[in-house]
């Protein structure tokens, strides 16, 4: 009676494996990404240089790193809207400590420490006080930004020591690969292993799939969510650190132009369900690349920002359409 298809075993040939892959969510995104690249290749000659793509990878690294935390949190069915403000908190903290201690490492440590602190507060409020994460982090989006404004009086804080090693890290390469992107990819791979190969990762999907079921199955739902809030704010802090390297200043408006929305847009474009439990980090990577490439291509073409908004929005809707189409045709899970 049990009708188990052999398909999920190992005895399928390459052709069928490829055709099965073509049905996955990720395949659709890869095709969309290639389409965007080819389109700009045709329309805008300057995108035919290799350099453009290395720059692209450097530029999207902060988004990608923040997206890791957002993805993990959203898979468990929770949100963090405050990541844009986190960038400024990290940035300002880092440079203030630079100037106060004249020590680069202390500044970096202090800047990064803002992540677990803010994330821990979110985690506490959501898991212990049973507050809604969307509203809580919307609150801290404003509160954190306000704190930074009050503290800096809206003036950028200049790195008085001029830690060039710090600033160079942003522009340096490992071979041809920009250093920030190397870091981003290492973090993506680590998170991917955690999500797909460990019990912790499995539990994240379970919580997003049905929290009560996860709880009565002995999963420590609150602890895991707490950790995810910490991871999310920490990944935003790392992004903030990279942006600080780029400018060498503690900037009060870092991330204020809708950073959180761009990152969440990339994550959703990558196929993470708002309700949790569904999607993959590979999708997120592709989603961020697609949005990044579109923005860069349009900028190189000199398209005005209104037009950019329109095109980016349309691509998002196309991707979401693809996902819902995929949900309808596919019977096999893919993460």
């Amino acid at each position, binding site marked *: 009676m049990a009708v188990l298809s052999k398909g999920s075993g190992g005895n399928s040939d390459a052709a069928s494996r490829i055709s099965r892959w073509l049905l996955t969510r990720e395949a659709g995104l890869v095709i969309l990404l290639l389409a965007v690249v080819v389109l700009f290749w045709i329309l805008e000659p300057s995108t035919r240089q290799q350099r453009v793509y290395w720059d692209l990878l450097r530029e999207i690294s902060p988004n990608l790193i923040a997206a890791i935390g957002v993805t993990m949190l959203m898979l468990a069915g929770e949100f963090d809207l405050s990541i844009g403000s986190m960038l400024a908190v990290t940035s300002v903290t880092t440079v203030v400590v630079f100037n106060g201690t004249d020590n680069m490492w202390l500044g970096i440590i202090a800047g990064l420490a803002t992540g677990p602190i803010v994330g821990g507060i979110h985690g506490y409020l959501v898991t212990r006080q049973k507050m809604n994460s969307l509203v809580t982090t919307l609150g801290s989006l404003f509160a954190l930004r306000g704190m930074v404004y009050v503290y800096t009086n809206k003036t950028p804080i200049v790195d008085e020591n001029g830690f060039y090693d710090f600033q160079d890290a942003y522009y340096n390469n490992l071979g041809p690969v920009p250093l920030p992107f190397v870091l981003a990819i290492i973090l993506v791979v680590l998170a991917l292993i955690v999500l797909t190969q460990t019990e912790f990762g499995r539990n994240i*999907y379970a919580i997003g799939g*049905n929290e009560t079921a996860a709880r009565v199955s002995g999963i420590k739902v609150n602890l895991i969510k707490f950790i995810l809030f910490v991871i999310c704010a920490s990944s935003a802090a790392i992004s903030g650190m990279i942006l600080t390297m780029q400018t060498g200043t503690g900037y009060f408006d870092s991330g204020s132009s809708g950073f959180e929305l761009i990152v969440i847009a990339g994550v959703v474009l990558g196929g993470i369900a708002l309700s949790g439990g569904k999607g993959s980090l590979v999708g997120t990577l592709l989603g961020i690349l697609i949005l990044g490439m579109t923005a860069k291509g349009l900028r190189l073409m000199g398209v005005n920002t209104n037009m950019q908004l329109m095109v980016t929005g349309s691509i998002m809707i196309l991707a979401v359409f693809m996902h819902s189409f995929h949900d309808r045709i596919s019977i*096999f899970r893919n993460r």
Partner: protein
Amino acid sequence: MSEQQALLQLTGIAKEFPGTKALKGVDFSLNAGEVHALIGENGAGKSTLIKIIAGLYQQDAGTIEVEGKAVEFHSPADSLEHRIKVVYQELDLVPDLSIAENVFLGNLPKKALRAVDWQALYSRTSELLLDLGLDIDPEVPISALTVAQQQLVEIARALSRQAQIIIMDEPTSALSQTEIESLFAVIRRLQARGVGIMYVSHKLDEIYAIADRVTVFRDGEHIATEAVVNTKHSDLVTWMVGREVKDLYPRTPAKRGDVLLEVDSVSGGNIENFSLNVHAGEIVAVFGLMGSGVHNLGRLIFGNMPRTGSVRLSGEEIHAKAPMDAIRKGLGFLTENRKSDGLLLPLSVKDNITLVSVNNYANLMVINGQEERRATTGIIDKLSIKTPGIAQKIRYLSGGNQQKSLVGRWLLEDLKVLMFAEPTRGIDVGSKAEIYRLMDDMAHGGMGILVLSTELPEVMGIADRIIVIRQGRSAGRWISRQEANEQDLMTAATVQMEKVI
């Protein structure tokens, strides 16, 4: 009968999902004033047929006729138009809206300028509810109702649209005996008015109680349609399963070992000072009516609901409020609310089955996929779970196969005591026997089993000892199945309840 024009006639209906032929050209007909039961194993295609009639799915082949006229249903609205109303396996009411708004959902009575006529809404709802024997304020939100009351609201909704065909998909799976009786009374009244009723259930006794004709599906095929009076219970089972099910309750005496689970004056919710213990090799059943606290007892013991009193497993105290402590010490719990407390709908069959046991396949935190797949396949075979593959999303399995997967979840974990709330709810006869056999095996293997059930035959069939719970308190204990009889158990469970209802 044969000359009469059928109210609903389905001919050669076929439907295929990726990986599954759910229906392979089936026929079904329904006459006015008739109750026609549809039965079949889990995954036989019953719910799929219903969804086609409801306009939720379109058939790949075959025709639908209503009162002799061919119709095509492209959406639920088309089906409603022909005065067909489905009461689904999973109720589809809006919990935060009032009863009245739910009854007239999509069909609210209006005054001038399309403003809602609240007065008419409430008075008409009251009338409909009274007609169904439900004396309740129509302004109350749905979320405040019991499942049985919600079911009646669904039926009121059907009446509000003057439905001539009402379809019920496993309507009694969460109802108490008295509630079932009153549902049947409603069905008989509808029948007398000429409404045709299609009735899907796994409880064969109900077929004899209420249906005129019965149709059996197996694996998407039509096996038989007969007048109920002409069929024996064993015929129905054989048609459904394709073979005889000789021994539904294969309980054999096992060696009673040391005490494993000790529940000592536990209170919480509507439960007061409940004590029991389960020994190795024993199947103990707690029997109670819906609302007696029989299911909450499981939650209290497991720590999923705050409690006072003590629970010990092999002498070790299990913390209140911490299911994971219970599991780590060797206590498992299958809840009765499978959909809301059990299923991870967006995830695969495999992930659902291995949810609890996944740590068993992990070395140094990394999961060994091969071992996990092997374990899953083992469960799928053992419980005959019908799925095109282990990677299929569980939401696409039939209701009964989802249930089986959740049973399987606990079979993979190495436990001392397993608590089953309604172990066979929504599960077909053949698989029921299989699950009872597994329980028997587990008891022989030295485990203790605690069954929390509202199904009397089940309790009588498998338990070594029986405890009756009534209004949260112990209302009788039987030290062996042989000493108990249905009459006594039922009396113990119901006396005094009557005034409450």
